Every structure is written in C-alpha cells, then in structure tokens.
C-alpha cells in the first residue's frame, strides 16, 4: 500500500482498532497490519498480548542486537517479554483460544461479508492455503476485529455481500477497520460508524459491496494524539 492510497494510513487503521481494547483484555494480533496495534499509545489501558505459539504478555520488538532468538511472536518477530508474562505449549495456547479466553483477535482479511463471514486463508484457485491459527481464533475469540484495505488494487470492494473466497469462519466479525472508515457487519449490511478524513459517504458506498447504512451519529475516525 503506497501513500497514494486514500484515507487512513496503515498505522491509523491499526490505531483505530486498538482504541477498542479495554482494560484487562487478552488480545491476539495477527501478522501484518494488526501487529501495528502494538505501536498505539493507549495510555492507562491495561491488556495482555497473547501469541498463538504460547507467549502470553509479550512486549515490543527487541532492539537489534538484543534479540532473544528463542522468543518470537506469531509473525516470527523477535519480541520481548513484559513483566507478568508467561509461556505455555501449543496445545495449551490453543486451549486458551478455543476456550474463549481471548477478548479480541485482530486479523487481516481478503474479504468480509455483511453477515460477518470473512476470508483470509486461501486465494482463488489455490490448492491448499495458509490457515495457521486463524480459524481457531476466528471461531473462538470473543471479538473478531478485521483490518483491511477498503478496496483491492483493481478498486474492487473487499466489504462484500457474500464472500467469494473460501471463508475462515462464519458470522464472527465484530468490527472492521479500513482506510475508509470503521464498519460493523449487521447481517443485512455494513454500518458505517466512523468515516476517514477526505472520504465521502457516496464514495464509500460506491466501493462497498452489499448494503451500506450510515450511523445516525456518524463521526470522523478517531485518530491518535
């Protein structure tokens, strides 16, 4: 994504999602833009990052030269531990996920539907795919937050009436942060709750699949600082 892309930057998309995190939450950040949520300054809000490889309570990426090569997050980055962290094995880590102990998972996606389905593991015509922990997280986290660019490179919508790609989970998406705004899948459409600077409702409607409704109290996207 270049700076020429409309609306929010990737960091702003991540920031907006991070503002949803509440005190005491256990949060799982997926690979890519979701990782950038950890850069957001949330002041006194207290939460724990969980990584599906069993790291509970990890902190920022380690400075170059100070990496612990046996400490990585889900994306394989050499992170650090925060005080109060702990480590479990993979079966226990996914017991945490499947058991409903994750308050929010933040993931990327290719597509999200009005019904809250989303697709992020398999491209069109591909044999197999890359599931990783996405299906477990999607099916079991209390909240599934999706961050994605609003349109494809061909300017086609990623918020769609129905997913064309094989889905990761059905009816689970709670909230969507795109470079155009903040959306909620309602089952019968997408509710635009916050709009990015420089965008208009008409422009968003034209680039959104299915039905777009607009919140009565539509606001500008909450930005950092």
């Amino acid at each position, binding site marked *: 994504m270049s700076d020429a892309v409309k609306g929010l930057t990737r960091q702003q998309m991540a920031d907006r999602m991070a503002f949803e995190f509440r005190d005491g939450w256990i949060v799982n950040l997926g*690979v*890519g833009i979701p990782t950038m949520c950890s850069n957001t300054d949330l002041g006194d809000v207290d939460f724990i990052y969980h*990584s*599906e*490889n*069993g*790291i509970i309570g990890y902190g920022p990426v380690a400075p170059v030269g100070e*990496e*612990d*090569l*046996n*400490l*990585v997050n889900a994306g*394989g*980055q*050499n992170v650090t*531990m925060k005080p109060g962290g702990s*480590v*479990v*094995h*993979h*079966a226990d*880590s*996914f*017991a945490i*996920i*499947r058991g409903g102990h994750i308050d929010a998972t933040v993931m990327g996606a290719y597509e999200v539907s009005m019904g809250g389905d989303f697709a992020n593991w*398999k*491209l069109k015509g*591909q*044999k*197999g*795919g*890359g*599931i*990783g*922990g*996405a*299906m*477990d997280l999607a*099916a*079991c986290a209390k909240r599934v937050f999706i961050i994605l660019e609003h349109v494809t490179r061909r300017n086609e919508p990623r918020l769609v009436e129905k997913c064309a790609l*094989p*889905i*990761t*989970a*059905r009816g689970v998406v709670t909230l969507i942060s795109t470079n155009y705004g903040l959306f909620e899948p309602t089952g019968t459409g997408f509710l635009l709750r916050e709009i990015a600077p420089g965008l208009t409702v008409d422009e968003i409607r034209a680039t959104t699949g299915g039905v777009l409704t607009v919140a009565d109290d539509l606001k500008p996207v909450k930005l950092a600082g």
Partner: protein
Amino acid sequence: MALKSKEVGSFREAIADIPDGATIGFGGFAMPGVAFNLIKALLDQGAKRLTLVGNTTGGAQVPRMPDMGMLVENGQVAKVICAFTAATRPTDVLPFTKYYESGECDAELVPQGTLAERLRAAGAGIPAFYTPTAVGTELAQGRETRVFNGREYLLEHALPLDYAFIRARRSDTFGNLQFHRAQRNFNPVMATAARVTVVEVDEPVLPLGAIDPDQVHCSGIFVHRVVQVPPEPEGLWPTRRQERRR
C-alpha cells in the same frame, strides 16, 4: 539403582532406525524449537515415503534453515500434515507449493489449534474430540459435525506419531526437558504423541536431580534419545531474522 542415560552421541545415530513410511512430527514454530540438526541428519539418512507433521512446510524465512519442505524436495515425503501449505502472505511462495500442486506430494491442511489438539489427544488416549474450529468452512465439507448446547462442532481424530523431532534448552540424562520461551511451542505435545521422541538440546546434558521437578516442561517418560547440539558451524542454531523477500 540409577536411571540409564538417554544421551546419544550423534544425530545420525539418534535417527538411524527410522524406516520408510514412518510418521514423524516436527516441533518448532518459526526459528525457536525446530530440530534443525535432526532434520539435516534425516536428509542424509534418506528414509522415504514419510508422513511429516508440523506447523508449516517452511521456506518463507531468510536465511532458510532445515525444514520439512527440504525433505519434500529431497524426495523423501509422501504426505505432509500441517497448518500452512502456502505462506501467510500471498506474495510469499513456499517451495512446497509446487510439489503439492503437481501432486508429487500429498497434504492435509489442519488449523493450527486442531493440529496441536489432535497431537495432544494422541498422547492422552483420547481417540476423538469435537471442536468449533473450521465449522462452516471448506475444511468441514462432507465431515461429521454435531450440535452441543446449540452450537455446531466438528469431530476431529487423534494424530499419533512414530517419531517426534524436537529441540529444548536443557535435558537431564532421563530426558526431563526445559524449554526457553517460545522454544516450547509444539515440542512437549509432540513428545507425548510419539512412540519415539528424539531431542536436540542446546546445553550439555545434566545429571539426574539437576532440574527442579516442579520446573520440568516435558517429563522424561516421553523422551527416548537426547543429543547435544555442538557449537556453530558444526551445529545449527536459530539465526537472526532477516527481512523477508517480498
């Protein structure tokens, strides 16, 4: 009466008996906890028609370290059971993909948590269990589901291993293991699922009693052979992560 040491002198010796057709589990997630040295030895050992079980076939990271994909490329593999037959980023291409697409190697794609739980079930004497993961997806097509308390779940089966290849920070002579941080991942679970668990360890093997019983991460009752990893360049160690090719 002292327990016999499970320490073995070389990686080659530790895996010499692996027959054609064996099912082998590979611990590790990204760099930490991967038994690089045992994989390298298996490339030399040459057993064929293997079934490999692990998180990913590998090859997306730079520099590339020994991974399941290399065994595929070496013509040793019939089937891979894993959570990634393709990379997370569509722009990365895993070396495995072309073997899979051409039909040279079969694969079974399993969500990561289901993979971990199927391995745990194998070690725990649970033949099958129900999970909410993958319900309603392509992976559940034609498969048995069941509703409990109003929610639909998928039936999944235990996944037993003949061998597990894992890496730990330290071991005593009985094979009681400790892992460091993210090195733990699938490793203790794989050990419980395998008939024979082979471990490569970072540190010299300790005498019995050197590890606090409360702080053993994987009991030696699940461990059969232990090999100490020599220093570089003879031994392979996790390396600093380099920017991935885009």
